[in-house]
């Protein structure tokens, strides 16, 4: 890993150009959502935004447990971070659903973690990001989350994803072919049985954003360049308006990698390797662009994330991303903190993230 920067620097401008073009074509997608993109994803953050006074909230998002030595340590990190976020006044803590693979495999059912978090916290929102709904009986999902909601005195929320990995559908093979429609039908069922805020997990697929708007759900998505994000959010709010729903009442939650620290180089040294390992796991699952120089691709992806598409590093740099998200019309930054840094370092860095948060919201 150590010589990657050198290798990237060793590319000719043409090679680098080619690499970046491949990155744009491949892009990254939301966990649980199909990685296929309708439009090219770019690592270019886009032009400087107009200043915005839109309020934005912060939450913690768990999804990959990459840095823990044992499962028990992962859950300890989850509970410790959630207790911190609860005390400080973060909006929510999100946990995912994952099966079978190492990448986030420690989270088989977010309702179980939600119940544990409900018992461990007082006021923070407890949300699933995301329940892969086609894998389950929606009535059972509603029933399990009814318990979490009561246990937490009404703090539960749910985002739903269609899923995409054929192996996950070992739990319910018959739902694979028509998973997207099964998800939307399932959401209807859950909402009839359970009155909690509902999100739809969207990558950049316009149809999913529009459908989320039409059914009056919130949206959970992953950070993407400002022009794309702005356009998707506008479509979503327009779809709400067309159904007679207040367009601004829909919440758009955007996932961003977070490890805030004043010392850029110290943070870079801390996050680079785990972030690259995370990106590699990600590309392993979603497929590398054919013929690509894997190491150079990962190095380029890391640099893009570090420079402008994450809360990795100096808080002022992070604030610029938050301002971009506000200008794009987002309502919440969901901070991915368990992408592979060791647990003690993650906990140590949380106060700096909280400090950034208090620039935008009160304690």
């Amino acid at each position, binding site marked *: 890993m150590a010589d990657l920067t050198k290798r990237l620097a060793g590319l000719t401008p043409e090679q680098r150009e080619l690499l970046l073009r491949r990155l744009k074509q491949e892009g990254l997608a939301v966990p649980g959502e199909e990685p296929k993109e309708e439009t090219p994803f770019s690592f270019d953050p886009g032009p400087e935004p107009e200043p915005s006074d839109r309020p934005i909230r912060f939450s913690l998002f768990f999804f990959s447990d990459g840095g823990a030595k044992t499962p028990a340590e992962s859950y300890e990190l989850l509970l410790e971070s959630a207790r911190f976020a609860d005390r400080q006044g973060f909006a929510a803590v999100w946990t995912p659903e994952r*099966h079978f693979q190492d990448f986030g495999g420690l989270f088989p059912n977010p309702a179980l973690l939600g119940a544990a978090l409900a018992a461990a916290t007082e006021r923070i929102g407890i949300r699933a990001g995301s329940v892969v709904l086609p894998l389950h009986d929606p009535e059972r999902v509603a029933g399990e989350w009814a318990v979490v909601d009561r246990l937490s005195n009404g703090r539960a929320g749910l985002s739903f994803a269609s899923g995409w990995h054929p192996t996950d559908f070992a739990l319910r093979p018959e739902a694979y072919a028509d998973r997207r429609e099964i998800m939307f039908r399932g959401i209807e069922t859950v909402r009839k049985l359970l009155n909690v805020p509902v999100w739809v997990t969207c990558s950049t697929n316009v149809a999913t954003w529009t459908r989320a708007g039409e059914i009056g759900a919130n949206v959970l998505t992953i950070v993407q360049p400002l022009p794309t994000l702005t356009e998707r959010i506008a479509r979503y709010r327009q779809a709400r308006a067309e159904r007679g729903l207040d367009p601004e009442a829909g919440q758009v939650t955007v996932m961003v990698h977070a490890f805030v620290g004043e010392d850029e180089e110290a943070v870079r040294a801390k996050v680079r390797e785990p972030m690259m390992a995370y990106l590699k796991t990600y590309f392993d699952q979603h497929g590398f662009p054919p013929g690509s120089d894997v190491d150079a691709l990962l190095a380029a992806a890391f640099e893009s994330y570090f420079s402008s598409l994450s809360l990795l590093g100096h808080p002022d740099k992070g604030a610029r991303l938050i301002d971009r998200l506000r200008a794009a019309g987002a309502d919440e930054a969901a901070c991915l903190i368990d992408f592979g840094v060791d647990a003690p370092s993650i906990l140590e860095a949380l106060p700096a993230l909280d400090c950034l948060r208090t620039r935008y919201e009160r304690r």
Partner: protein
Amino acid sequence: MSPSLYLTGGEDPHLFLKVVRQAEEQGLSAVWIAEGAGLFLNPAVLASAAAVATRRIALRGCLALPLHNPIRVAEEWALVDNLSGGRAGIVIGETAGVETVRRLWRGEAVQVPDGEGRPVEVRILPRPIQPELPLWSRVDEDVIQTDLAGALELLKRG
């Protein structure tokens, strides 16, 4: 062996936590959570909450396995095992799925069809803390069987 509580039902999750905490304080060895309706729909959800609210008492689900996917049962209770530091256990009748649950718990792979109908080998995550799943075919002889309200009364009387 100290007695244990077999919880058959109830409505209030806060009362559930109160009962489990109280049972632990009074030195009971285990709570058994019967699968049922409402609050007791999935005992693993209640056991997860109890796991972080207690330190020592064993948390056991009584499941009607034929109704469920053995993979789900294994991964959910492996999570309870981790959250509780190795206090999970389950009661299931002698049904076809038991052996699958047992094997998955040990870290073995089972072969199942994936979403495209191809056979895949799956192993569960997280890996549980206890190497062998504590498994009963029925609850112990010396359990006190009651609903939540009754359990609270019994515990008050000591």
